[in-house]
């Protein structure tokens, strides 16, 4: 009896413990074919206020595609929190969609996995050629010098959104253009339970987007030209410190923002609790939070001095969504047709208008729909002063470790502990040590 129980307990232990160890899957699929020319599976990322909105935007277009080509597209909108894990699982098992959206910053990481169809000259030809796309958007499609792993679908950029009512109440006439002005403006606004700027301190990706731009402004990069992690350069340290100091020293960010990771800063903005946010294409979210278009304004994100531009005057990452094709699709020609359809001038105007983003396609970008002031700021930023995040295979690890380092520094700042150049450097040093050795 005791032996049976011991064995039973042993089996229970084994199963509990090794459920974790079990993360295997099948083998890789075969190369693409045209065995199933009538159907396609499409994983869309969630670009609207919620998954239902996405379905409403996309389904009519997919129906149009079916009408024209006879190919039925099965749509699944995948929430952001799940998308990368779903793609990894699909890569491992070989059981994935035919066409999918990816965050453009994942391009190089996923390119290394080798599951996505490379867009060589021939494949580009099938969707209208490389020249069809805006060059800066193509900069976020994979490691430089290699065939892109995806093509741009929606482009987005960071901008400074400000709450007009709060600005008027504080007697502020124009949005800040430099970080110094932002700190001054923020101090005027930060009183009586209201705050100057919002931040998502526990959102690792958002932390990365902010400190990446600041590092550019300090003339630093987080990776060397040959792809080595370089997190502790003076410029990188200064950039991270400058961002966290908005809470620690200038006190224009509320300490509570250190634990924000689910767009709470946008709710605060809509509730007149925070006057400014640095965000990418926020208009759709503001609308869903019940704000009218004339309640908020938009201005280029701040720079250290002067006007936004290339190099040290960068004020945004090239944010956006790319579209990729799984190499082992059973309808590879249909998949390319679908990508061509989605990146066509006509669809680009419809889709980007619906999502408040900018078309990464030259002709569509000229459509008057994107001349509205809110979108013009984003378009000009993308055209003149946005830089692509590092296109290295380790980008996703970089987001995790440096994003966490910034989060920890925000925790210090929120708890009233000093944030010094030394503590920032120590945090980044620790992050760099966690990067895989080459």
């Amino acid at each position: 009896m005791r032996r049976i129980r011991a064995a039973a307990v042993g089996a229970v232990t084994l199963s509990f413990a090794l459920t974790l160890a079990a993360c295997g899957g099948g083998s890789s699929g075969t190369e693409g074919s045209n065995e199933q020319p009538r159907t396609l599976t499409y994983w869309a990322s969630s670009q609207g206020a919620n998954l239902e909105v996405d379905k409403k935007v996309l389904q009519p277009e997919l129906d149009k595609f079916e009408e024209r080509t006879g190919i039925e597209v099965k749509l699944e909108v995948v929430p952001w929190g799940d998308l990368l894990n779903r793609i990894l699982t699909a890569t491992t098992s070989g059981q994935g969609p035919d066409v999918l959206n990816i965050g453009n910053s994942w391009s190089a990481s996923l390119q290394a996995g080798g599951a996505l169809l490379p867009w060589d000259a021939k494949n580009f030809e099938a969707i209208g050629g490389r020249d069809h796309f805006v060059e800066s958007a193509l900069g976020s499609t994979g490691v430089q010098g290699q065939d892109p792993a995806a093509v741009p679908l929606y482009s987005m950029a960071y901008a400074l959104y400000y709450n007009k009512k709060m600005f008027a109440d504080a007697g502020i006439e124009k949005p800040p253009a430099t970080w110094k002005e932002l700190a001054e403006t923020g101090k005027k606004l930060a009183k009586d339970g209201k705050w100057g700027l919002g931040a998502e301190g526990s959102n690792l990706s958002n932390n990365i987007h902010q400190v990446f731009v600041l590092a550019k402004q300090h003339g630093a990069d987080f990776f060397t030209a040959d792809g080595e992690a370089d997190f502790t350069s003076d410029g990188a340290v200064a950039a991270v410190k400058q961002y966290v100091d908005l809470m620690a020293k200038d006190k224009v960010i509320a300490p509570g923002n250190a634990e924000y990771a689910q767009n709470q800063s946008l709710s605060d903005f809509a509730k007149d609790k925070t006057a400014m946010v640095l965000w990418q294409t926020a208009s759709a979210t503001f609308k869903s939070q019940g704000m009218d278009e004339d309640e908020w304004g938009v201005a280029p994100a701040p720079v250290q001095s002067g006007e936004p531009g290339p190099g040290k005057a960068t004020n945004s990452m090239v944010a956006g969504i790319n579209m990729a094709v799984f190499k082992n699709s059973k309808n590879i020609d249909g998949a390319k047709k679908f990508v061509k359809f989605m990146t066509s001038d006509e669809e680009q105007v419809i889709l980007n208008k619906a999502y408040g983003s900018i078309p990464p396609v030259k002709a569509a970008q000229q459509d008057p729909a994107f001349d509205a002031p809110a979108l013009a700021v984003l378009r000009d930023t993308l055209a003149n002063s946005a830089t692509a995040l590092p296109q290295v295979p380790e980008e996703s690890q970089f987001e995790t470790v440096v994003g966490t380092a910034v989060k920890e520094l925000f925790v210090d700042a929120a708890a009233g502990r000093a944030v010094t150049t030394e503590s920032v450097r120590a945090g980044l040093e620790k992050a760099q040590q966690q990067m895989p050795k080459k």
Partner: protein
Amino acid sequence: MTTTAALSAGERTARKDDPGTAPRRRRPGRLRRVGLPYLLLLPALLLELLVHLVPMVIGIVVSFKELTQFHIRDWGAAPWAGFDNYSLAVDFDAPVGEALLSSFLTTCLFTVLSVGLCWLLGVAAAVFMQETFRGRGILRTLFLVPYALPVYAAVITWSFMFQRDNGLVNHVLHDQLGLTGSPPFWLIGENSFIALLVVSVWKGWPFAFLIIMAGLQNIPKDIYEAAALDGAGVWQQVRRITLPALRPVNQVLVLVLFLWTFNDFNTPFVLFGKAAPEAADLISIHIYQSSFQTWNFGAGSAMSVLLLLFLLVVTGVYLWFTSRGRKATDA
């Protein structure tokens, strides 16, 4: 016993009557007797193999591979890493090993506190609930609610309550009772350990309560009556009768609670999201991050295998120790 004796007697007579056919008639019967349990177990065994053992073996194989993002598409072809993943995980001077060790120690402390508190609350509540009083049924049901709620729904509610600016916890502690100078953070920084512990105990103690309550039903009332006649007080009754009688129940209960708590993934994952704060970086979350956030599945699997070995050793030692103790009592 009598049936077996009768049967064999019958067999003996049969053999005497017809010696040629007897062995043939006996064999299928015996085969059936011996084979049936195995036949009945076969589906379960096959499923166990498919659902648990095969993935486990794959996990162990992966732990010896250099399985990073460069190889996930065809992971069978990933280069062998030998013991590299293991030496990376146990090199406590290097950042990866150091982080794993600190996560391991955090998990140990967390488990001891959580299991201890769950058990203590469970025993206390179960002992008090032995007496019949008005509303006992309602209280019993109420106590079991946390155990009945779906984990995700319960923990996400806790995460709202623990929010610094809008959460219920700070509203009570800071705004109403004025216990703290400034509203503390619960989901980031040092306090996150306390938050995690509170949720874990809240979620786990009803199970202890349930099991111990069932165990208490088996203690005959007359023992207490006899003890009371002999002049034993309540505390002495608990110490001399209740606890020793609960010993076999406790033995299993503590082991199960230990394994569940040590391996708990859902609670910290739902409470803190993808990047758990260092103070509450439980080992299961740590392994998940090592695998999925940095895409190093080999190292993640190696850590899982180490965790498995640790749990096997702890379970083995625990069972040996407790059963030895019982043998001594039996003797």
